[in-house]
């Protein structure tokens, strides 16, 4: 890598669910529409990351008998309480999800054509003229990010605005984010900033605040896009402990080799056992 590794730190504690990131991403990358269905999933009508959704804002809307996560306001005051109809409280969590640009990226590892590659910025990008639509990257991704477009079969996902990075611009989603929930920059710097922010929230009594994907020792070797979450990852539809599947590949090849040898040996054995035919 000739350049410094860059990435996203998405601080969901300041996300207001405006979807400016979704729109900016669509506009800049000229991504086709996803259809206009209403899902009934709170304000989320895009459902998940996919071939035509490279930023996805999740809306977690839950009545909570045990109370909701209270975030400090700028002046240190608590927000006013909003009682829910059933006597409990409604909790809102909003989070803008994106491709994690894993250090050990399963999609890149399993791609049979070399269409997926790591850029000089340490990000993972699909070369659309080489992708042959085999779809192997899709189930390989432990985060369920990359997806094939049904019409042509090729796989698409966030490029971290590779074209913008090359000219010194920040990605469209980070540029459009009005609350700096999406922060772009050198990964090391973002990790320091994230650690400060999570400490600040813990001091303010937000004990549920935690970082996700920031650890270089996690199952994917650390994410190029990591998050500050206010509850368990699975609440937001994220896997709790994802692992790059190619970590087990040496074992898999060993077992496949042993299986192949046992097939050869097993059939040879049957010919020995069978001997000559009885006439």
């Amino acid at each position: 890598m000739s350049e410094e590794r860059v990435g996203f730190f998405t601080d969901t504690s300041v996300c207001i669910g405006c979807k400016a990131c979704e729109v900016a991403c669509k506009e800049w990358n000229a991504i086709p529409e996803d259809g206009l269905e209403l899902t009934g999933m709170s304000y989320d009508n895009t459902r998940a990351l996919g071939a035509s959704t490279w930023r996805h804002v999740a809306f977690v809307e839950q009545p909570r008998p045990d109370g909701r996560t209270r975030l400090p306001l700028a002046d240190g005051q608590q927000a006013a309480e909003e009682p829910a109809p059933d006597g409990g409280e409604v909790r809102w969590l909003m989070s803008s999800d994106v491709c994690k640009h894993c250090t050990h990226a399963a999609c890149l590892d399993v791609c049979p054509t070399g269409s997926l590659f790591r850029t000089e910025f340490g990000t993972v990008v699909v070369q659309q003229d080489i992708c042959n639509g085999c779809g192997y990257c899709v189930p390989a991704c432990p985060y369920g990010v990359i997806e094939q477009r049904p019409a042509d079969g090729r796989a698409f996902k966030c490029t971290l605005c590779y074209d913008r990075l090359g000219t010194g611009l920040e990605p469209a989603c980070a540029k459009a984010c009005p609350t700096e929930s999406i922060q772009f920059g050198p990964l090391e710097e973002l990790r320091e900033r994230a650690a400060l922010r999570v400490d600040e929230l813990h001091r303010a009594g937000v004990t549920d605040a935690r970082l996700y994907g920031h650890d270089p020792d996690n199952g994917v070797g650390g994410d190029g896009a990591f998050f500050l979450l206010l509850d368990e990852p699975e609440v937001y539809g994220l896997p709790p402990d994802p692992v790059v599947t190619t970590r087990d590949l040496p074992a898999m090849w060993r077992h496949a080799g042993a299986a192949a040898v046992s097939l050869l040996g097993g059939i040879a054995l049957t010919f020995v056992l069978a001997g000559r035919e009885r006439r």
Partner: protein
Amino acid sequence: MTSAGSSTPRTRGRRGDRPMVPKAEFESYYGRPVIKAPSWAATDIAGYFFLGGLAGAGSVFAAGAHLTGRPRTATALKVSSLAAVSLSAAALVHDLGRPGRFANMLRVLKPTSPMSVGSWLLSAYGPAAGVAAASAVTGKAPRIGALGTGAAALVGPAVASYTGVLAADTAVPAWHGVHRELPYLFVASATAAAAGMALVTGPTGENRPARCAAGLAALADTAVAAAAERRLGMVAETWREGRPGTLLRTARVLTVSGAVGAAVLGRHRGAAIASGLALLAGSACTRFGVFAAGIASAEDPKYTVVPQRETKRT
């Protein structure tokens, strides 16, 4: 609503020594899947797994028959292996959308990509199987034919086993969880299919190895499938319930009855054909069952979240 799913562990009577399955309490985002299921069509990819196994194990069987003076069985299996590998290549191209895309598969050789390795294996195996079959059918160039037979028999086992890695090297819980067992299950299933093909197409006077292989394959298949289900823990539900469960149970019944039929009655032509067909169908059911279990495990966030919460805790 964000669903808090919970399911009580199934307590079927079989194998009472299975460790207690943890109670599957978990939260999810509106019940949506965490990972994406492969968009592969079952007929293309599960069919490809079955045909690749039939071809690969069939080539080993053909070489054995060739060497031990069972010429009609040898020829029949050389032809069936060529047919199976041609059909499997067609299934692969159909899944890619257009033939030109298969050429992209050979741009690079990547050991980290089982699909890349498999494409190169097929490129080596296909022509060898073709030479073996062509020589056997025409009777021409017997030395080159023997060379093709030998080459196909050496590469064939890899063609049959790599598909286990292809499925396992994904985040799909019902596949990746059994990455150790899957190659063995696939070669056992491939052996059952090849033995079935030999029983159907070979004369009864040459079928003792096939009857023997059917028994070994059925034993291995049953034992490995049981080990795989033990390894999967709560994810084994996807191997037991719904359509995949039906397919896998049908596969066991067909494979075992085919093997028993072959062993006991295989000297009778009609019984040999019936047993062979049962073995072929059993092998196909195993591949389609494992494929369907994978899809089911990818579509339910429970199978991604609950096992990962366990690994996170330890």
